[in-house]
């Protein structure tokens, strides 16, 4: 069971308090009517399903209820960074390097 840090509560808690909500930093287009069908399909369905370092959305659903983002190595399950929703996407390569990968 993963150990997850909530950047809002600033505590580590067991995975059972959280829900994973998939890939992070997929913004809903500000004016969807201006998107092409291909762009909209990309937004709706296309995900990287990364093997390795990936940014994901998590929600502290049985805690504060807040959404936040986390960078996880999907192979080792190690988390490299937790940050609040709205903060910019970190440099994943730099994080991977830092973690000694």
């Amino acid at each position, binding site marked *: *069971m993963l150990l997850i840090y909530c950047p809002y509560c600033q505590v580590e808690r*067991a995975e059972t308090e959280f829900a994973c909500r998939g890939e992070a930093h997929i913004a809903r287009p500000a004016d969807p009517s201006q*998107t092409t069908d291909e762009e909209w399909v990309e*937004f709706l369905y296309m995900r990287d399903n990364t093997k390795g370092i990936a940014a994901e959305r998590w929600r502290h659903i049985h805690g504060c209820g807040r959404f936040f983002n986390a960078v996880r190595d999907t192979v080792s399950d190690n988390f490299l960074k937790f940050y609040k929703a709205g903060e910019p996407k970190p440099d994943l390569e730099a994080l991977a390097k830092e973690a000694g990968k």
Partner: protein
Amino acid sequence: MSQPFRTEKGGRIDRAEQLTFTFDGEEMQGHKGDTLASALLANGVHLVGRSFKYHRPRGILTAGSEEPNALVGVYRNGDQTPNLRATQVELYRGLEAVSQNRFPSLGFDIGAVNDLLSPLFPAGFYYKTFMWPHAFWDRVYEPIIRSAAGLGKPPKNPDHDFYGNIYAHCDVLVVGSGPTGLAAALAAAETGAKVMLVDEQAEFGGSLLSEAGASIDGKDPAEFVAETIAKLAAMDNVTLLPRTTAFGYFAHNYISLAERVTEHLPTPDPKLPRERLWQVRAKEVVIAAGAIERPMVFPENDRPGILLADAGRTYLNRYGVKVGHKVLVATACDSAWQAAFDLADHGVDVAAIVDMRETPPESLMSIAEARGIRVEAGCVVTGTLGRKRVKGALLGRMMTSGQVASGGQIDCDALLMSGGWTPTVSLYSQSRGKVVWDADKGAYVPGRSVQKERSAGGAKGLYGLQATLEDGYAAGEEAAKTATGKSAKVTYVSASGGEAGSGGILGALPHDRNASRVKAFVDYQNDVTAKDVKLAVREGMQSIEHIKRYTTTGMATDQGRLSNMNALEIASGALQKPMTDVGLTTFRQPYTPTTFGLFAGISRGDFFDPVRKTPSHDWVVENGGVFEDVSQWKRAWYFPKSGEDMHAAVARECKTARESVGLFDASTLGKIEIVGPDAAEFLERMYTNPWKKLAPGRCRYGLLLNDAGFITDDGVIGRLAEDRFHVTTTTGGAPSVFATMEDYLQTEWPDLDVWITSTTEQFAVAAVQGPKAREVIAPFIEGLDLSADAFPHMSVKEATFCGVPCRLFRISFTGELGFEINVPRRHGKMMWETLAKEIEKHNGTVYGTETMHVLRAEKGYIIVGQDTDGTVTPQDAGMTWAIGKKKFDFVGKRGLARPDLVADGRKQLVGLLTKDPKVKLEEGAQITTAEQPATGTPAEGHVTSSYYSPALDRTIALAIVKNGHALEGKTLYVPMPTGSIPVEVTGTVFYDKEGARINV
């Protein structure tokens, strides 16, 4: 004399306490401190089971949890627990054990004919045999395979024991309490770190308990164990858990422990759980799991009486049991010699030491000579004699050519063997670490740590008492320092004796026998022979993962701890590839078999899933209502009066509600409070409908889509004030709608000033529906003019009900005049009982979910999730009226414009009327255009709702049908096994099409 194989003295058993037990009904004696295995051996019983496939007689092979053969059933309170390892079952007075996989008896087993037929059961037997015809898969082959599978019989009754669960955190978790583990725990504990020490055995000490001829700190090893444990037990920062298996190492240093609490007790305290699941988050882990001895793969190496050498030594030194009176020791390494010496010291006749090495170490030779033990160096066992007990062994002399020459025969009644040692890397492997081959040690050892753990001592291939103690101290200190930053002066103690030996052998041993006739077992429990592994390679298996699955080697309960290395070497030889290129299979959780009860814990019966009850629950029970489960809710389904069946009760409830009045508990509806300056804007973006112009005091039906454009939920939303909305959702959709709203609010529109709160549990809701609804509620409502003009359909106001604040909605899910009264949950029972009494005055009725469904279907009101399935758009459902077309955006708006969603040929919601009004369609039934469609014809759609309508006195149905809206008036068919049912496509509203009844 009972216990003819018990030594005269020694061992850790309590000789003063004699315990009577039975095995297959035969009464025997043992002592406190025995395992079932040691007690059986003391009584001269080696034959304890029959093998899985060939039903060969099998005996106790090991003294630990890796035991593959001695699987027994143990009876307690009339129930049997199957497949327990006799080496782990602690003896208690009155223990009742039985052997398994034999019929009619252990001594005479009909299944043993399989052994003679063994040429018919090669590796991959199942794959090769149970292939054709296809029709046989389910009906013939599967039952045969199932009945032959497994060893023990599962218990018939529900488990009457209960199981506990504990969460724990510690700085350092030490797994294993041999010399390494004890030293590690002590070193870590002395720094003040919070330490947990766990061991799967009843007693701490591991190999130290069977050590003879060594000393630690000048003391007997067992004394060192006792002193160390006493010291640890006295420390507040230490938790000691014997009888506890660390069976799973998961991500982020999360380790699962299974503690056996009462299994070893003759009369367990009923207040204690049978087992306890510990879920431990450890900052650092020391894996001190030790190493286990490898069997030698020679022909007939599976006869009862053949044991691992170290097991023989453990039975002797720890349990005071001689494995035989005349014991042959076969080995390729030093450690087995010690077993021979210890046996000789207890007066056992050692038939010979047969060592494959041409020149065993001089030091050992001289000790053997001093004890008068015959040594056959450069020799190998090429076969054994006897059936239910080994009677002798065939010797082969190893020649420089690699051939083996016959070396005669030696009589014995037990044979101890040792192919060397294999480090126990299971937990390390579970932690996702990759083992590496250590050529010097001839073993796979832990590589780089992936998690916060370190293997120490035997678990990393380090042997010898002094070396393992030192490694343990160092590992404990380092783990504590990493976890807590603290260190302390640790008192190291030194040991003498127990030196590490050398030598070892892998794979099948050479012999001079007919290779096609002999069986040399690699995996005992699954009856896999060296021949099978070679055959798998011959038949094209290249990867060790394929060989494993084809032959089932390493797939028994020991997960290949005994067999993997030998199998790997044999495969490597057959593949003509170096062993390291063949690969090693991964060890997975659990380390040893773990009960389902442990995982289930208290989540059984009523505790499996929470039951949610509405305020009317007790009243419904008292008044004979029948419940149905709606997700976790218990909802009243219908209320039969005496003599009524469901059909009659529902018909009466429907009729009464339409003619007079009905009362329904709608408390399960999801409710969400949306508050804030941007509340209307938020709803505008979430729901398809327009909200900004909805006046306070008014309600509107809201339709919720996902961004793909499909309907996901619906419900009435009331505006209580400019900045406050009361949203209702479907019963099942409440949590997901709330989560979706939070998601959009937090991550897409954080600029909106809105708070959303789930209030499902805060309100009790009574729906009063029918022409007399106003009269029923009027006496109890204060502060509100209920007249049609002042409070028209789709209104909401705050008022009081019997003096209690309420939110009163004038809404209808029946097509009748209707009100839904929301009161604080604690007043729900009062409200229900008040209204239930009041409706009687008007000849009204209470009704349940079935009547609710019929009434709404008569009006064509959809149920999301029943009439929609996640692929239905508002257009498909005929609800384009719910879409605010002028809105800039809402969730799903863009999705609705996707080419597939506006294309022709979509399935659309329609009504269906059977030509015969008495015939009721089955929900889910397929719909076709042809009366007798050919096999393979795709369906045009399916029936989503189907009821008998009392108001129409005929059946009605809703369905989604391809191009359904254009088919109104057309005839389609619902083919059923009993014949094709013709139906007419209609609109979805069957009753009061102009909606006159609602506006009164």
